[in-house]
């Protein structure tokens, strides 16, 4: 159940975005990756979830290699990600977004659908129950039938989270879920992330908001220029001299 990244390297043409990155994500933990813009955090997510092929290195989950698999196959194995840029199905309602997100919870194939097998009705109705449950969980019940693209930014990010949850992740990778949110919204998201973890989902989080990161993480990994420069508990990271120099910056004294 451990997600293990070893010696991961990614380069774009001449630009090295990741260079020998190794870390493991302990099952059931909330692990955060922090680092300045351009450090390679999103690139690491893309490599782990199959959106780009690493130049070198291995990614293992649950003892099996994820490297070389397509994103959909990786999602099927329970490793699901969200995107840094808001990403929803714009012209579908919130409920239809989530229903679409439940793709992996249903099994009907082409012929089943064509001959309309009897169990399809049961499957669909259980999907609809799940939709309501997930929408309720992220607190979008009042937006159920509204088109996703018409929602305010913060709520679109919640739709995104709902979509990812619909894929029934065992490891959930969240790329800056709090970006652009108000303080209150961030608190809500932090709470949701905690609750998700309590249901047994491992969380790998990329986030710039230090209060959020330090508040909910078990482990923090610091990335700079494509390398891991520190790894430890929030307390250790905040005291780490390299980190303070490279990222937190003395005057800001983030915590």
């Amino acid at each position, binding site marked *: 159940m451990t997600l293990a990244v070893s010696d991961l390297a990614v380069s774009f043409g001449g630009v090295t975005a990741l260079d020998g990155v190794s870390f493991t994500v302990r099952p059931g933990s909330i692990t955060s990756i922090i680092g300045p813009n351009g450090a390679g955090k999103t*690139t690491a997510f*893309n490599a782990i979830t199959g*959106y*780009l092929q690493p130049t070198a290195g291995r990614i293992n989950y649950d003892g099996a290699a994820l490297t070389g698999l397509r994103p959909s196959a990786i999602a099927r194995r329970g490793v699901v990600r969200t*995107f*840094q*840029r808001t990403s929803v199905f714009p012209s579908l309602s919130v409920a239809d977004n989530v229903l679409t997100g439940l793709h992996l919870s249903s099994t009907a194939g082409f012929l089943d659908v064509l001959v309309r097998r009897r169990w399809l009705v049961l499957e669909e109705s259980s999907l609809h129950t799940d939709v309501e449950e997930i929408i309720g969980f992220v607190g979008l019940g009042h937006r159920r039938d509204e088109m996703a693209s018409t929602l305010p930014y913060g709520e679109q990010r919640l739709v995104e989270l709902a979509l990812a949850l619909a894929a029934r992740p065992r490891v959930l990778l969240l790329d800056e879920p709090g970006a652009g949110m108000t303080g209150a919204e961030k608190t809500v998201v932090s709470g949701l992330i905690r609750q998700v973890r309590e249901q047994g989902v491992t969380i790998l989080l990329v986030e710039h908001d230090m209060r959020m990161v330090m508040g909910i993480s078990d482990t923090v990994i610091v990335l700079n220029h494509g390398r891991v420069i520190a790894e430890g508990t929030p307390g250790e990271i905040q005291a780490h001299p390299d980190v303070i120099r490279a990222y937190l910056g003395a005057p800001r004294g983030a915590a």
Partner: protein
Amino acid sequence: MDQLLQHLVNGLVLGGTYALLGIGLTLIFGLMNVVNFAHGEFYTLGAYVAFAALTLAGVNFIVGILAAIVAGAALGWLCEVTLLRPLRNESIDTTMLVMIGVWIAMQNGELLVWGGVAKSIPHPFPTAPLVMGPVAIAPLRVIVLVLAVGLIASSWLLIHQTKLGRAMRATFQDRDTAALMGVSIGRVHAATFAFGSALASAAGALLGPVFLAYPSMGDLASLKAFSVVILGGLGNLTGATVGGLLLGIAEELGAGYISSGYRDAVGFVIIIMVLVLRPSGLFARQERIG
């Protein structure tokens, strides 16, 4: 061997005009992101304008071709300003549908004006071929090749030596940055579309007298222009020039050695092969995920 030389020479003449078509389209496609299915209709337009100028107005051959160029530029400009400008922020499919509409409308407009019977465009050059060793070539074809090369060279100068060309290249690189640096995107787009259409029109005026002018002549011209663009790379002038010449030669060889019925298949096969084998290779502008 002698046959081969003859095919190469014929292919070069054809290829010169394909290059003109391709340069026009590669600028429009690369710079404006418009899949211009009406491109071939400007080619047809050029042929008919040349026909009208030469037979009805009885002007000199070169003036006829100039008239075609002016007509192509004017109509292209009009098209951009009225139809494409309002849709600049729409998806590529939206503008493609509009250009399909323009294509159908223009083609049938031509059919209404000129009728379905093919017209032969008169030219003042002797019909007896010039014989150079094993190769025979009609004087008209030599003139066509020379003019095509001249037009390609002028396009080069325009893109690389003028202020407009600089603005066009900047827009191609990065539209937003170009706009920030004071380039008027609207004007660049209008100029690009007018220029591309003028080149297509010129190609039609040049090839029209070699073959015949008929309303549906633009259909294949569009597709050939697309294969040239795909062969040469999006927005790539050198690529379009070389691609055009290659397509012309490949068609002549295909027609000569395989079967003349499959001449037009060469362009299609190029499109399929290049896109399938190197889907991102020739025009890589990889999208970022995240």
